[in-house]
Every structure is written in C-alpha cells, then in structure tokens.
C-alpha cells in the first residue's frame, strides 16, 4: 500500500509539472459528466479531464445531452471504468452532432489514484461523421462550386481531406486531509489532425468537501491568445443517496443547476445550464456501479 501511495504522489507531481509547463490548449466535452467535476469523479471525468477516481470498482456510465437546445448538437456517449489496486483505467465511445457537422469519438484514459491523490492521461480520437468529400458528393456540387449553391463549402481551405484528429491530455488532483481537494487538468496537451470542436484551456481548482455540503472554485485559462479566462464556482448539498447543486460561470455570466440520486448500484443525474442569449443546455447521465 505504501508503494502504491508513493507511486500515486510521484505521478501527481509529474502530472502537475507537465501540465504547468504545457499549458496551451485543451478540448472535448463528449464525456463531461452531469455532476460538476470534481464533485464526483468516475469514468466520465477520467475520460473528460483525466481526473482519476478514487474508487476502483467497475463502473458503466451512459451520458447524453442537448447543448444550447439545438438538436443538431445532440450527443450521446458510453463510458466504462475499472481499477486495480492504485491503477485506474477508462474507455468510452461517443457520437455528437448531426451528420453534417457531427463527429464520433473514442477515448481511453489510464492513471493512478489513492484516497489522497490521483493522476491520469487521456487520449481521444475523433472522426467526422461525414467526410468533406462525402458531404460534397451528397450535396451534388463540386468542392469549388460558387457560394450558396451547395450545402457545404469545402473549397479554399488549408486542411483539405483532414477529417480525423486526436488529442492527448493529463490531469491530477490531491486531497490533503481529504477535506480540501486541489486539481489541475489539461485535456489537450497535444492535438493532431483535425481540430477538436472546442478549444479548452488548462483548468485548476480547489474544492471543499464537507459531509453534507461541498463547494468548489475553478479557473480555466484562455485557450487561444487574446481570449479571456473563465471561472466557475458552485455549491452542492446532500449526500451519496441524493444531492443537488448550483454552479455559476462567467464570460458570459450564467448558471446551471442539477440533481443526482443513487439507489444501490444505480445512479442518475441531470443538469440544466442557462445562457443569457442561447437556449438552455441539458445533460444527463445514468451510471451502474458501487457508490464512491
């Protein structure tokens, strides 16, 4: 056990060093859980932010959502997680968006965790549901057709034929005394091929975990030069069987709320995020596995 703890702490230090030095960009939201990270860490959070869960029991999670009320962005995913001693692993599949703009994702994560710390690496690969060539063929027009005459403009770009890409990310957390939790995550330290659907930056945060109340504060650095950092803060009430939470974000200022419930090995959660201009986003998850 001492060996495992030692390995985990070394892993956290290494991960933090890598993340701090490589703070450039990160992206991917297919596996984002309904519950705010790192309120509950599991297979989804390991695939989404490379935050390895404390528990090692197997877990199966089904995720879905409709971002901004747009059916064209509907997403569904399945993720599975497993642990052995201090090692943690997760894998998942996801499909997002309609055929014209959507993509499919496969992701893997591996890491280590102890009750006081955790670290992981994540890898995700995406492929457009339709290639540029297929879209052009379906629209019946050549890629260089005049604007407005085809459903998809595929001409003139600098990435002709690139419809698949991948990313590598890492994350780590530490919980000294188990009440305070610090984490840092960079979902995309490295990207290759087709660009991800969203540029996400390095995130770091702190959480306070009481018996019935939990609160957190996180900051995500701007993903691109000239962008602005974003922040989120939340508070959750309840225990393992039932909980509710609210979370506020800035840029632009908005809020989300959610609830979760567990009955034996079954758990469900749902969250709604409001936006000052865009329609609401809805996300849900169903999990099968022992309580954390």
């Amino acid at each position, binding site marked *: 056990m001492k060996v495992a703890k030692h390995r985990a702490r070394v892993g956290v230090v290494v991960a933090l060093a890598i993340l701090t030095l490589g703070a450039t960009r990160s992206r991917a939201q297919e596996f984002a859980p309904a519950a705010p990270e790192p309120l509950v860490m599991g297979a989804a959070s390991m695939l989404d932010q490379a935050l390895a869960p404390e528990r090692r029991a197997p877990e199966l999670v089904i995720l879905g959502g409709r*971002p901004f009320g747009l059916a064209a*962005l509907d997403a569904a995913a399945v993720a599975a997680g497993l642990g052995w001693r201090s090692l943690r692993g997760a894998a998942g599949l996801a499909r997002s968006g309609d055929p014209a*703009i959507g993509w499919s994702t496969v992701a893997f994560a591996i890491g280590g965790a102890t009750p006081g710390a955790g670290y992981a690496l994540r890898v995700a690969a995406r492929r457009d549901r339709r290639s540029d060539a297929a879209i052009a063929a379906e629209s019946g027009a050549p890629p260089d057709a005049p604007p407005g005459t085809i*459903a*998809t403009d595929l001409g*003139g*770009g600098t990435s002709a034929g*690139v419809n698949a890409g991948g*990313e590598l990310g890492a994350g780590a957390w530490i919980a000294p005394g188990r009440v305070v939790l610090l984490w840092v995550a960079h979902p995309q330290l490295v990207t290759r091929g087709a660009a991800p659907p*969203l540029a996400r930056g390095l995130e770091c945060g702190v959480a306070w975990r009481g018996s019935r109340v939990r609160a957190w504060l996180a900051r995500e650095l701007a993903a691109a030069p000239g962008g602005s950092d974003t922040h989120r803060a939340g508070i959750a009430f309840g225990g393992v069987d039932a909980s509710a939470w609210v979370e506020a974000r800035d840029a632009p200022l908005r809020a989300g709320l959610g609830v979760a419930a567990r009955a034996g090995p079954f758990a469900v959660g749902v969250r709604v995020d409001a936006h000052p201009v865009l329609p609401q986003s809805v996300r849900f998850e169903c999990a099968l596995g022992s309580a954390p």
Partner: protein
Amino acid sequence: MSLDSTCRAAALLLSSSLAGAAPVFAQCGAADRPLISEVFYDAVGDDSGLEFVELFNAGAAPVALAGVRLEAGDGSAPGRWSVRWTGAARDTIAPGMRFVVGGARVQPAPAVIATLDLQNGPDAVRLVWADGVSEVVGYGVQEFSEYACGTAADDAASGLSLARIPDAARTGSNATDFRPATPSPGRANQPDRDAAVIAGSLSIEPGQPEPGAAMRVRARLVSRGALGFPPGDVSVQLGFQGVPLLDRDIDARLARGDTLVIDLVLPAPAAGAGELIARVTAIGDEDSTDDRDSLRVRIGAGPLEVTEIQFHPAHGEGEWVEVRNGTSEPVDPAAFLYGDRAGAKGAIHGGAAPIAPGGYAVVAQDRVHWRAAFPGADSTRVFAVSPWAALNNANDANGIADVVTIRERDGTPCAAVPYSATGIPDGVPVERAADGRWGPDSDPMGTPLAAPHVLPPLARTFRAAPRRWRAGAAAATTLEWSLPWAAAALEVIAYDFAGRRVAVIVPPEATPARGQYRWHPALGPGVYVLALDAHAATGQSLGASEAVRVTGVAP
C-alpha cells in the same frame, strides 16, 4: 412730359366731342387712315431680318401708300427720326387687309422687305402720310412726348410683338391700344373667331403609361377671338406618332375669352416614344398657328429601367440608383438625364459606356465613396451625375417620398419611379422584385449591379448555409432569416461550443423581415452557435440559433 401729352390728348378729345365730330388725337393718325397694328422690334437672339411693322386698313376702301414714310425714332433725344421705308405707287392696302413691312426672315413673307433696324425701348415708330398726318407708336418709358401717341406702350419682352388689340382699337394712347403678343405678321391680332390650345397645357397621367392601360390626357382650350363659338363648333383631336387617337366635339359654348379644360381618359397606344399632339378645330377659326400643343411622351418602359434605389445611405456610400438596360441593344447612359420629382436635370457621365443588353449600372451621388463601400463591385459600371438631385427620406401627404426620374436629353420620359419610405428600415435600399413590386432590399446593403435576390419563403426563423466549411475558405456563408414583422433591428453573434461570445457576425442594424447576409467567416476550427437576436419596433423580440462547424487542422 407724359402728363403734358396726356393733357393735350384729353383737350383734343374734349373739343372734338363738343363739336360732335369723330375724336382726333395728335400723333395718333386719322380715322380714315390705316393704322399701325403691330410692331415687332426685339426677336429672341439676333433681330436682323425678323423685325416688322404691320399696317391694318379697317376701312371699306383701299388706301394707297404712295409717299407714306415709316420712320424709326430714337427716344433718347428729341427730333431723332429716321426714315426706314417709303411707300411706292404700287403699295396699296385693300379694305380689311394688312400690309407688312419687314425683314427678309419674316414669315409669311412681308409685302415689302425693308431693313427696319428698330431699337429696343424707349423708342418709337412713326407713320407719316403725305398730307402730314402722322401716327406714332411708342414703347418703353418715354422722356419726350413726340415719341408716343398718348402714353407709350409697355416695352415688350424679347420674342413678343406689340399688337393693337382689338385690331381697330383707337383710344388715343399707345398704352391702352397695344399689348405684348405672339408675333402675327399679316394676320389679325385678335381675330373674330380663334380657338386655341394653350401652349404647355397638354399633360398625361401617368407620365409613362403602359400600352393599353388607361391614360388621362388634359389640355386647356381658350377662345381668343372677339367672338365665341356656339356648342358643336369646336372639336379636339389627339394623335400620337401621327396616328389619330381621338376626335371629339365640344358640346359646350366657348364664349370670348373662355377657357375650357379638356379631360379625357383613353387607352394608351402601342409602346413607343414620340409626340402626343392635341389639336383644336373650330368652324371659322381665323388663326391656325395656335391650334395645337405637343408633348414628348413614352408609352411603356424606356431603355433604362430603375431597379434599385438607395435614398437613405447609412454606410457612407452616398445615394445611388441602380438601372438596367431593358433593351436588346447597348445603351449609352450619357444620352439620359437623372433627377427627382422636380425633373431630370443631372447629366450622367463617367463609367464605361455603353451598358450591355440586360446589364446593370449604378448612378451614384459620389462615385469615390460608393466604390469604397462596395470594393468588390465593377467600378466601370458606376456613373456619376452632375448635379445630383438629393432624394427625400420621408413621405409627403400622398405617401410618396420622391420620384426617381430619368429622361432622354430631348425630354422624352424614360422612367419615373415613385417610392415610399414608410416601413423601409434605415439604410436599406428599396428594390424592384421580379414581379415588379417594390419593397425593402433583401440585403441590407443592397444588391447593386446584380439582379434582385429572390428569396423563397423560409420555413425557419434563421438558417445558415452552408453549416460546415473549412477554415480559411474564401467563399461566403449565407445567413437567412424570416421574421414575423415588417422590419426589425437584428444582430447575429457567434458563440463557441462552451457558450463564450467569440464574434459579432451582423452588428445591430435595421433589416427587412425576410433577408439575408453574406458572411465571410474568419473563425478558427471548431463548433459554433450563431445566435440571432431580433427586436421589432413594437418591443417584441425573437431569438433563434444555428449550429455550424468550421473544420481544419489543429494548430
């Protein structure tokens, strides 16, 4: 001096009346002699050969003019008379006839051609008979009494003669006997029977009717003779390009001096441009020179059609009007004049003429600013107008803001398009749709030099097409919207997949209900949500969003 002359004339009149004889006026001729009935001394432009003096014999017997002298007087000093013509033995005036002494260019040719070299007033002409009887016709403000019979007549404007009206008037004063009139050498100044069409009174409505459509023709007739016309003696005829359109009797009595408005509605003839002529015919009409009036008209569309009007520019481009060559032949815009409802007076120039058949051109208030606002447009098809007639932005009581007018240089109408500014969002041009109806432009900036965008009904509030493109693609994405109001203030903003605002695509501006915007995206790879936010003048608002994808390689 004038008072002295008047007193002397009054004394003579009084003594003659007391004696029971016909009135006798000094320098005013004699009752049994022909009178000077018309003097034309100031033609428009060069007078030479156009001046004339007309004598009229109102008596019942012929009068010989042998030895009679016609003299010109210079009113600047006393006694400055010079002979211009002397009657020969063959010169005689028959009873009721006229004798014209004038230049070689007088039409009809005068009885005697002479160089009169008459001066503009204050001056005079004098007819001196062999027995010493003389008649003076003075004009202008005279300083010396010898240059007028009684009070001199008012000076006549260029192009008008001094005519004795009635022809046998003899009141003892040039001022009351003579008045300015259209020159009528050899003809009565005031015939007994003369029906005329008042020059310039002919008009049609609409100004450019379609073939076969109802057109309203108006003209004014006047009875200028000493006598009038009973009902049925007068008729009016209309013709276009030599083809008779109408011949109608006037059933009303036309008394002396009466004016009659002719108001006729008839189908417009076949398409074409030419003269519409209104002519009056009257039984016993003694003067045929004033029987007609004409108007350059066009039936149907002209060579240049007005297709788009920017009357309230909001982007510094200045006012502009798009025209289209609707013919099968090239058209040179320089052959036309541009203007507003006050008339077409602006010369069209610059640009690369001619306009090809079916081609478009723009006449702009300011070519430089227009080209800056439309950098991608073909500037060779942009023409300047001098002077530019500024177009109104607000409607008048009739619901018309202004009328874009184009005429050929000979005055023939080419196009006259009234427009209403009501309901047109600020800065948005008005455009003629394929069905001929005018309305707000589908593109807030307009579609100059291009055919109108025919926007089919949109089943959704907001749409982007295409929804997917490569980063760096040169082609534009078209954003379309369909709002439940006539017009609205609208903006479109792009948010990234995390809901963060990343770009303003369409800044807040007034737009028509159905419209589109050509957007050249500059977003990096990613998924974006385009959010449309529209507000009606009533305070209602509406939002809609569309997901789009920009593909590209990861940096």
